[in-house]
Every structure is written in C-alpha cells, then in structure tokens.
C-alpha cells in the first residue's frame, strides 16, 4: 500500500463494464453525424460460450448485466431448451415468470426514481431529489427492494441469480416462503400505483417518433419471460426462430457493438413497443392507471416511457401476487433436458427491451456457436436518430447544456449501454 505523493487522475472508479460516448459532427449548421459509441460485452460472451457445456449459459450470461441478469438467463434457457426439444410449462414456467417480475420491478424502480425522474423535476440527480423529497425516493427504494426480495427468494440472490438452471430451478421456494414474500409485495403494489400517479403529473415535451416497434408477443398475456411470436408495428408478426431472417446486425465503425436493423430499417424495442403492441394484455388496474395517466392506445413519446415503466411495474407486482396466490410448488423443481444436435432460439422482454439468444449445440452437449442480441444494440439506431434530432434543434446551446440534453434523451431509453456505461462523453465537432 502506498501513500506517496502522486497526482492521480481518476478517470473512473470501478464500474468499467463498458463505456459509452456520443460523437457529434456538425457541418455548416447541419448535424452530419451523431454516433453513440458502445463497447459491448455480449460479443465477448459469445466467444466465451463456444465449447462450453449447454448447461452453462444461464450462469455465464447472467454476468453480462447486473441490472437484468434474469433476462439473460431466461433467454438463454429458452434457446437451449428449444434446441433440445423441451418445452417447460406448469409451475416451473410460472416460477420463471415470477422471477422475471422481480427483475422488472427492481429495474424499473431504479430507473424511474434514481435516474429518470430527476430529469422531469429539475434536479441534477437523485441525491438532490432525495434531499428535497426524501419520502418519494424512499418509496422508490422500497419498491425496488420488493423486486429484489423476489430475486433473492426465487433466484437465490439479487444479482446474478444462482438458482436458475436449464430445465427449471435448483430448488423451488415453499408456499410459506412465498406467503411471506406476498406480505412484502402488497404494500409494494400501493407504492407502484402511487408511482404511476406521481409520474403522470410530470411535464412531457410533445414528441411522437415514427420508429418501427418490435416486441415479444404472447396471445394469452402481457409478454415478459416468453412469447410465441415477435409482433411489429408495420408488418406481420414472425416466429421467434425467424428472428435472424428479419433482424440483421451490422458492424459500424464507431462501435464494437453490432447495430441491428429490422428488415433494413431502424426500430425500437422496450416499454413503448410493449405497451403499443401488447397493451390489451395488461391488467384492468394497469389499464385504468394508464388511461388516467394520459396514455392512449399507443405511446410513441420516448419521454413518456417513464409512465409506461410505472404502469408495467404495477402490472409486474400484480402478476407476482397472482402467481404466488396460485403457486403449486414444482416437484421436482426442474425437468431433465438432454443435449442433442440442434439449434435453438429464445426471446424474452428485458426491462429495456427484447433480448434474443441463439445457440447451436452438438450431440456432445457442447455449444458450437452463440448469438446474443441485446436490446440496446437493437435500439441504437433509434436512439441515434433521436439524438440527431435533439442536437439539430439545439445547436445554439453550449457543449455543457447540450450534453445534458443528450444524456436526457439517452435516458429515455434506459439503455444498458452494454451493461454498461457510466458517462456519456460528448465530443462535438463544429465544422
């Protein structure tokens, strides 16, 4: 350990999982480029997974993201079980949905209260908000904690859950444990309802974006942890295994992330897409709150994504309580999944958007290839398009205020900039 005098420039303390930057080029008063630079872990994980056992992706891919590990685990498991020709239903499937609800509640509460709300209330950050409105931030943290409680009980722990496996769970919670959890979730439902009413009162800029929307669809319910098709706003739905026929990833020079296009065009996944495409499957309470908050039959205003997240949080808490009430402890807690030569596809709705996994598995049970398409790389073109519009409309601002505006724009999309970035470093070239 050293205490010798030395001038340090601490460029980042920890959280170095990824980096992000925005590079804007303005030529003759016109925005020529607005490149969101992303350095993305999934590419590394795809390589890491090759040659590993087909049972390993749930544990390994959970490490891609600290905020949405369940999404990575769930899409991975769906793809592997698909490759092995196994369909898991019944109580195990219900338990998976319950676990995923925990992640939605936790992630949405974090984004709404600690990241997004300060933008609307004129606070520089959540700390300033907490100083003036401690009770509100406490409510958000209590809501987040309720989500974490689900993750801890069903997943074994809140970050990188360890109880999840191909075929089900290592152990299933008892009814008594879930009853205790339900007692914690009931006040969380009140907090979630209050959250919708709170964010509904924010001022939202008038903005409607025309990106195509894409979301997992389940004909029976609001798609979270699985679905039967992928529904889009400007075209017919397509099967999950046709994902790569429609979504093509392309390299862009400014990013190690691949940028996805849907049949050649930019598109958006996430809360706005889910609400617009699957709204009819929300619960009566969630729909009532959505209507009361001013949401119509679709939502294309990225600033209002905070309202959709709040509505989805209500739905997730309700859904968690419903699943607990109807819980039948699965026995055994997992089904056998035998490896076979094949290819499998899996999708789920991470809090910030659609997450696709594809695995090619050999008869020896080893992974031949892995493809992971995270929501942020799918949304990147839409985010950049939005950024170009924002920069073009605010060229008279100095770099500082413009950076703030760009950050706010990016925050609308709750990006896991590759799980993730911390600082949006804006480089502005005015030519």
């Amino acid at each position, binding site marked *: *350990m*050293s205490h010798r005098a030395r001038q*340090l*420039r*601490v*460029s*980042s*303390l*920890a*959280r*170095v*999982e*990824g980096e*992000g930057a925005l590079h804007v080029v303005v030529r003759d008063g016109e925005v020529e480029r607005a490149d969101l630079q992303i350095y993305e*872990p999934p590419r*590394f*994980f795809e390589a*890491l997974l090759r040659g590993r056992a087909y049972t390993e992706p749930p544990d390994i891919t959970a*490490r891609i993201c*600290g*905020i949405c590990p369940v999404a990575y685990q769930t899409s991975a498991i769906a793809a592997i079980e698909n490759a092995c020709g196994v369909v898991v239903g019944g109580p195990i499937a219900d338990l998976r949905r319950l676990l995923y609800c925990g992640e939605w509640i936790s*992630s949405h509460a*974090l*984004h709404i209260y*600690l*990241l997004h709300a*300060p933008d609307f209330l004129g606070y*520089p*950050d*959540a*700390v300033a908000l*907490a*100083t003036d409105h*401690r009770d509100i*931030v*406490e409510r958000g*943290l209590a809501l*987040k*904690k309720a989500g*974490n409680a689900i993750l801890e009980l069903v997943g074994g722990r*809140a*970050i990188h859950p360890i109880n999840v496996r191909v075929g089900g769970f290592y152990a299933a919670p008892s009814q008594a444990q879930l009853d205790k959890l339900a007692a914690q979730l009931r006040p969380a439902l009140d907090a979630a309802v209050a959250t919708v009413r709170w964010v509904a009162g924010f001022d939202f800029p008038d903005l409607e974006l025309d990106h195509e929307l894409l979301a997992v669809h389940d004909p029976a319910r609001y798609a979270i942890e699985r679905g039967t098709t992928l529904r889009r706003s400007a075209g017919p739905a397509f099967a999950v295994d046709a994902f790569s026929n429609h979504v093509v990833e392309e390299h862009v020079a400014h990013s190690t992330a691949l940028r996805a296009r849907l049949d050649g065009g930019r598109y958006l996944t996430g809360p706005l897409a889910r609400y617009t495409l699957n709204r009819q499957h929300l619960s009566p309470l969630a729909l009532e709150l959505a209507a009361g908050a001013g949401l119509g039959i679709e939502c294309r205003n990225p600033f209002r994504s905070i309202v959709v997240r709040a509505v989805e949080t209500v739905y997730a808490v309700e859904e968690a309580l419903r699943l607990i009430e109807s819980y039948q402890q699965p026995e055994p807690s997992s089904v056998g999944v035998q490896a076979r030569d094949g290819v499998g596809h899996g999708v789920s709705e991470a809090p*910030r958007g659609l997450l696709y996994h594809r695995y090619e598995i050999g008869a020896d049970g080893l992974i031949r290839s892995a493809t992971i398409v995270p929501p942020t790389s799918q949304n990147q073109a839409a985010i950049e398009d939005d950024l170009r519009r924002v920069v073009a409309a605010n060229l008279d601002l100095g770099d500082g205020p413009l950076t*703030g505006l*760009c*950050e706010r724009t*990016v*925050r609308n999309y*709750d*990006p*896991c*900039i590759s*799980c*993730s*970035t*911390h*600082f*949006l470093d804006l480089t502005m070239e005015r030519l």
Partner: protein
Amino acid sequence: MKTAVPTAVVIGVGNEYRRDDGIGPALVAALADHWLPGVRLVVSDGEPARLMDDWAAVPLAVVVDAVVCEPSAPGEIHRTDVSLREPADPVVETHAHSAGSHSLGIPDALRLAAALDRLPGRLVVFAVETADVGFGTELTTPVAAALPRLVEAVLGELLANTTERGKPTAATAAGRDVR
C-alpha cells in the same frame, strides 16, 4: 455469509469478466476461507441502492474496488477512510449525471445514503490500480500479486474494528490471519 447484525461488511465491487475489475470479487472469495464471525461478505456490482442496503447502519463498511488511474501503477492499493460528513473525497470524486442504467457509482451512493440516513458507521475504501479492464477472466500479474497484501490490509481493518468495539469476535479470526 449473512449474519443478522453484522459488525462489519466487506463489499467487493466489480466484474470478474473484466480482468482487473474483478479484484473486489477476488478479495471476497479470498476472505471466504477465513473465519470472520459478525462480518458479512458481499460481491456487488456497485449499484447504489444495493450498496446502501448492504452497508446501512453497519459499524464498519470496507469497500474494495478497482480504479483506473493515469498514470497507472497496477497493483498499487490506495486506502481511504472516507469522511462520511463530507464524502466528496478526491479518490471517490463525484461524476456528473450520466446516461446509463449503471451510471451511479460509489460516490453517488454515498451522497444518496447521506441524504437518506443510510450510511455505515465508518467507510473505508480500498482502491486497487488496474492494468487491464478489458474482457477476460484473469487478473493481470501485478494486480493478482497485490491480492495477498489486500487481504492482509482488509483483515487489519476488521481486526481494528473489533478491537475498537471491544469484542473478541472478528479480532480472533482476523488476528490469527494477520499476525
């Protein structure tokens, strides 16, 4: 190792898939072999709400994290006894509001915890300078070489904490390993 009323919590912040950023989790793994009654060991991604839950009202919180410095002396360990009245220490300087979901860090967690009365009794941060935080699962040689010194230093903190509290709990265990 979760105890009902911990006397101390050691929080290893980091990502073991980003080479030297894994020093925090590596420290926690190394301490798992030690008998540390009353001490809670936590691996964390540094998300503020979780940090607050982990350290709130605990007499001593020891946070171990990787730090990227320019210029860098990989493996060098910096200990900071963070003033909880004025947590804007240079080592944990506050960053501007940012865009990502993981954008809040330890400094923000400290400020938020102060606003919400969720601070620990004391906070000691060990920051280990990194050589490589690119993708990979192995610590670099200089950072791996620093791990034994880091373990010793953290055990020393736990020992001192127990001595101050006058209870022969963690001191017994930590003392055995340090001396």
